[in-house]
């Protein structure tokens, strides 16, 4: 394989793009495809060719543009400007044909500023709303801009340069040092320093070592990892390559939920293209570094997000966790030293190498650096995928970016961290996004689900909802989780139905303590979080539901 010349590939791609007089991005992520962006794309191609624009205008199927609640989204970039100047919302095939005939065509003919006709401008999203202006995109920089199915576009956007840089200029040790200095921490929820994890794996003895990408995004209400895999798969692959070089691994294993078929398809396509360009395989970029990736699918088990359970599942077995130590960094996949990193964590790595640890550490708080992607959903006016610097307050996220309540009712609480997390009441909205702060409040950062709740949502019912999830997903290996969860759920349902008494509530508290202390893995240890945090902030709601002895 001849060495790929990244600069040349990028140059050719940019020249090709430069020949087009306009670029239309159509969101082709699961969210927008569900709202009909496939039909929009067909209509777009048809309209362009009927106006003789097929060669002049490039249609780019992109990853998630963020504002999923208003999809399908269509972005117009006319005449070589950087970024979209027009973003259409809730587009359908008819509207698409009108956009081509009444906006794109006259704009190209006029060659300058063209006033958008009023019947179309009502479908335009204002680009100066906080949803767009308050975000800081590192991980999502390419999603919604490039075609994730073409490696050339990723390379043209600066892709694989971080890999080239470390292979030419840095020792594995120096790479680990750089990542450690950046302050990057695990984005799957644990928040373990990535540099330390890499160092531990690098220091372990073993002929074979593995990098595992945890794409088993199981939290209900979270789809950050899916969107990253769908929207910018090469960034994750490049992150894995860099991790592999740093710890001395020979292969990388993607573990992706089977419920994410599009993500799987895009990753497999990306792997094939990377192999074709000599960026995966033997002697990458002419060095003696060899590395390749494989994909393994999950099969619907929440507990597989826990790293020891995940490793068992990659091996093709039941995904039950095992006690640690030994940690995967010492003995993991097939008993070899393994480094398990979440999708978003790995997607941060190329940017850190390209722009430096100092740049990355310049964003965020004392202990939480960089940015974090959240799936902002529930009762927010603008819901979708967002990325903000750590340290941004919940108020900025919910009230500004999210545009406040969608229902008109006042907001009540924000749930973070999914079934392992908790609720944060609106009175604490000034809390900054930070691992430690969320923990102090009885929740966790989690993988990034952020669900906005309003006055109509009953906290006891929400707690029961989450607990039902974890009870259902408990693997059954240890008793505190298997039995404790079930008993606590029965009591909670009784209370939510107005049938419980004060003794039941105190029993709930005792069970919570037992599960927290006695469970084998994170699933059981954190399962009581939604119950405890709703009790902490909304105890009154529970008390109002209790039967008194006089009843």
């Amino acid at each position, binding site marked *: 394989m001849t060495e790929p010349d990244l600069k040349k590939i990028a140059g050719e791609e940019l020249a090709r793009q430069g020949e087009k007089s306009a670029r239309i991005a159509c969101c082709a992520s*699961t*969210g927008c*495809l*569900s*709202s009909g962006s496939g039909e929009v794309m067909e209509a777009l191609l048809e309209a362009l060719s009927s106006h003789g624009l097929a060669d002049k205008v490039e249609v780019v199927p992109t990853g998630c543009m963020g*504002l*999923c*609640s208003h*999809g399908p989204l269509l972005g117009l970039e006319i005449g070589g400007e950087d970024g979209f100047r027009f973003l259409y919302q809730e587009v359908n095939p008819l509207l698409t044909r009108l956009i081509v005939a009444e906006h794109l065509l006259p704009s190209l003919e006029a060659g300058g500023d063209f006033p958008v006709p009023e019947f179309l401008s009502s479908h335009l999203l204002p680009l100066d709303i906080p949803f767009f202006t308050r975000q800081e995109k590192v991980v999502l920089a390419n999603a919604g801009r490039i075609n994730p199915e073409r490696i050339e576009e990723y390379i043209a956007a600066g892709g694989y340069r971080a890999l080239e840089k470390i292979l030419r200029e840095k020792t594995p040790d120096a790479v680990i040092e750089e990542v450690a200095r950046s302050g990057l921490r695990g984005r799957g929820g644990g928040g373990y320093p990535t540099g330390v994890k890499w160092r531990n794996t690098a220091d372990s003895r073993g002929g074979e070592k593995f990098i595992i990408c945890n794409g088993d*995004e*199981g*939290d*209900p*209400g*979270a*789809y950050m990892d*899916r969107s990253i895999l769908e929207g910018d798969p090469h960034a994750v692959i490049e992150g894995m390559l860099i991790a592999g070089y740093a710890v001395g691994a020979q292969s990388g294993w993607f573990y992706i939920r*089977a*419920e*994410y*078929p599009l993500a799987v398809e895009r990753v497999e396509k990306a792997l094939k293209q990377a192999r074709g360009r000599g960026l995966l395989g033997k002697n990458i970029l002419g060095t003696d570094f060899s590395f390749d990736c*494989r994909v*393994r*699918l*999950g*099969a*619907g*088990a*929440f507990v597989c997000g826990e790293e020891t359970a995940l490793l068992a*599942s*990659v*091996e*093709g*077995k*039941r*995904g*039950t966790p095992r006690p640690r130590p030994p940690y995967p960094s010492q003995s993991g996949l*097939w008993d070899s030293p393994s480094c398990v990193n979440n999708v978003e964590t790995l997607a941060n790595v190329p940017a850190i190498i390209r722009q430096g640890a100092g740049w990355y550490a310049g964003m965020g708080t004392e202990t939480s650096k960089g940015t974090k992607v959240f*799936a902002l*959903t*529930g*009762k927010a006016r603008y*819901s*979708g*995928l967002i990325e903000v610097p750590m340290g941004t307050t919940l108020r900025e996220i919910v009230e500004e970016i999210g545009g406040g309540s969608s229902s008109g009712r006042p907001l009540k609480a924000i*749930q973070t961290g*999914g079934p392992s997390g908790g609720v944060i009441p609106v009175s604490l909205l000034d809390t900054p996004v930070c691992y430690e702060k969320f923990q102090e409040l009885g929740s966790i950062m989690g993988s990034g*689900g952020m*669900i906005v*709740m309003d006055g109509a*949502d009953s906290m006891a019912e929400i707690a029961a*909802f*989450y607990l039902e*999830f974890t009870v259902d997903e408990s*693997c059954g290996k240890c008793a505190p989780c298997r039995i404790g969860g079930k008993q606590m759920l029965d009591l909670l349902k009784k209370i939510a139905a107005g049938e419980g008494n004060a003794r039941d509530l105190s029993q709930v508290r005792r069970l919570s303590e037992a599960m927290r202390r006695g469970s084998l893995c994170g699933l059981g240890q954190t399962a009581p979080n939604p119950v405890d945090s709703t009790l902490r902030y909304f105890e009154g709601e529970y008390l109002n539901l209790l039967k008194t002895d006089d009843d």
Partner: protein
Amino acid sequence: MTEGGKTTSPKLSPAARAVKKWRRKRGALIMVLHEIQNQAGFVPRETAREIAEGMEVPLARVYEVLTFYNYFKLRPPGKAVISVCTGTACHLKGAPELVAELEKELEIGQGETTPDGLFHLQCVRCVGCCGLAPAISVNGKIYGKAAPSQVRQILAEWRAVFREEDVDD
């Protein structure tokens, strides 16, 4: 490769084909089961036995895996699998009402198939379209921002699909 020279026969069973593709790869059992489930919609007992033999693992190992993961089915589902997303965002925005309406219209409960074998109703954890909550997926087609009042129309749409298929047959 396998005993009896099965692999030389021109027409391999789906299980034999999947086993042949995966048996030399690591961590392959779940991938083999995925291939079968994708083709047949479930993993029949006979196929499970064939896989156990081909992969040279005890049948108990195959079932251990099959029964652990929610994704694998042991019985054939209906022609149209209706998955109601019960992720948090959907739950808050009316998934329980959608389930109730579907149960009423189809006269079946969750995890059940209609007697005519057309519809299978199940609840799933988050299909990842939280921005479109509440969502229903029928054989992979997603209906976002679904309301109970749309249920009848969605069912009629799928009944029509199967009527056309019958005519084609």
